[in-house]
C-alpha cells in the first residue's frame, strides 16, 4: 500500500513537471532507456545534470562579475548548460539558455545578468523537483525486498 501511494505521488510530480513545461519528451527518452540492465540510468543522468548545472551557473556568475566580461567565454558556458538541459529534457532551462546566448551575442552585460538570475531560479526549482523525484524513487525501491 505504501509503495502504491508513493508511486502515485511520484507520477503526479512528474506529470506536473511536464504540465508546467519544465520537462519535454527528451525526459521520456531517458525513461525509455532505463531497464533491468541499467536500473538507475535516469537518476544517474539527472544527478550528473544537477551537478554540471550548478558548476556552470557558479562559473557564469564569476564570469559576469569580472570588470571586462569575456562574452565568448560566457557564451561557451551557456552553450554547455543548454546542451545538458536538452539532454535531460529540461525544456524551460534550455529555452532560457537560448535567450541567454542572444544577450551574449549582443554583448549585453545587463541582459546576461538578468537572464542568469532567471536561469538560476529555473534551474534550482527544477533541481528541487528532481531531488524530490529521486527521493520518492528511493522510498519506493525500499518498499520492495532486495534481491
Amino acid at each position: 500500500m505504501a509503495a502504491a501511494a508513493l508511486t502515485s505521488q511520484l507520477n503526479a510530480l512528474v506529470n506536473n513537471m511536464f504540465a508546467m513545461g519544465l520537462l519535454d519528451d527528451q525526459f521520456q527518452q531517458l525513461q525509455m532507456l532505463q531497464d533491468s540492465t541499467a536500473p538507475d540510468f535516469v537518476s544517474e543522468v539527472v544527478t550528473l545534470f544537477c551537478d554540471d548545472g550548478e558548476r556552470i551557473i557558479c562559473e557564469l556568475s564569476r564570469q559576469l562579475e569580472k570588470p571586462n566580461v569575456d562574452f565568448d567565454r560566457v557564451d561557451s558556458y551557456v552553450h554547455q548548460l543548454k546542451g545538458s538541459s536538452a539532454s535531460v529534457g529540461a525544456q524551460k532551462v534550455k529555452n532560457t539558455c537560448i535567450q541567454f546566448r542572444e544577450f551574449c551575442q549582443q554583448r549585453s552585460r545587463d541582459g546576461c545578468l538578468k537572464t542568469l538570475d532567471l536561469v538560476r531560479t529555473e534551474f534550482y526549482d527544477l533541481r528541487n523537483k528532481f531531488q524530490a523525484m529521486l527521493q520518492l524513487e528511493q522510498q519506493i525501491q525500499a518498499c520492495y525486498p532486495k534481491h
Partner: protein
Amino acid sequence: MAVAIEAPFHVLAVDDSLPDRKLIERLLKTSSFQVTTVDSGSKALEFLGLHDHEDSPISTQSDQQEVAVNLIITDYCMPGMTGYDLLKKIKESSYLRDIPVVIMSSDNIPSRINRCLEEGADEFFLKPVRLSDMSKLKPHILKSRCKEHYQQEQNLQSNSESNNSSNPTSENSSSSTSSNSHKRKAVDEEILPHTIRPRHS
C-alpha cells in the same frame, strides 16, 4: 574464432559533457555496441594510438589498430580540439581514415554540417541524440568493413588459401538469433579472413 564472431562492434564516443557522455553511452549499449567514452579529442587520438603530432600509431598498438574501434562518434563543440579538428586528424591518418566518423552537435548550422560531411564525416546527428539515430550507425560500419575487405582481397589475390566457404561456424550459430544478428553474422563471416589472417600469417 568464436570470439571474433560474437564480439560487438566497438564505438568510441567523444564528448566533453558528462551527462551527454552518459546518455550516448547508454544509447549505444542499448543498441548492442561495445562502448568506450572519452572526454576530449586528444584522449580519443591517444586511445586510437595516434600521437598528437605524428601520423603513425604507437608501435605496440599497431597490430590491433584495425579491429580496435569500428566507429567514432564525437561532439562538435569541445574546448581545445573540436570534433571537426578530430575528424580532420582521423582522415589525415592512413591508419585511421577508414574508421567511420559521426559528428554530433546541438546547433543546427547547415554550413557546419556540410563542412563536416565534406571533410569525410559519415553522418551528422543533432543533439540530443535519440535511440532512432542509432540504427544509422551499423550501415556505416558495414560499408567501411566491406570496403576494407575488398581491398584486402585484392591484396591477397595470389593467395590460393583464401576461401570463405569453409568457415565451420556458419551453420550451427544461425538458428536462435534475431534477423538483425543474422545480418550481422553474415557480414562477419565475409570479413573473417580479413580479421584473422594478419594474426596467423
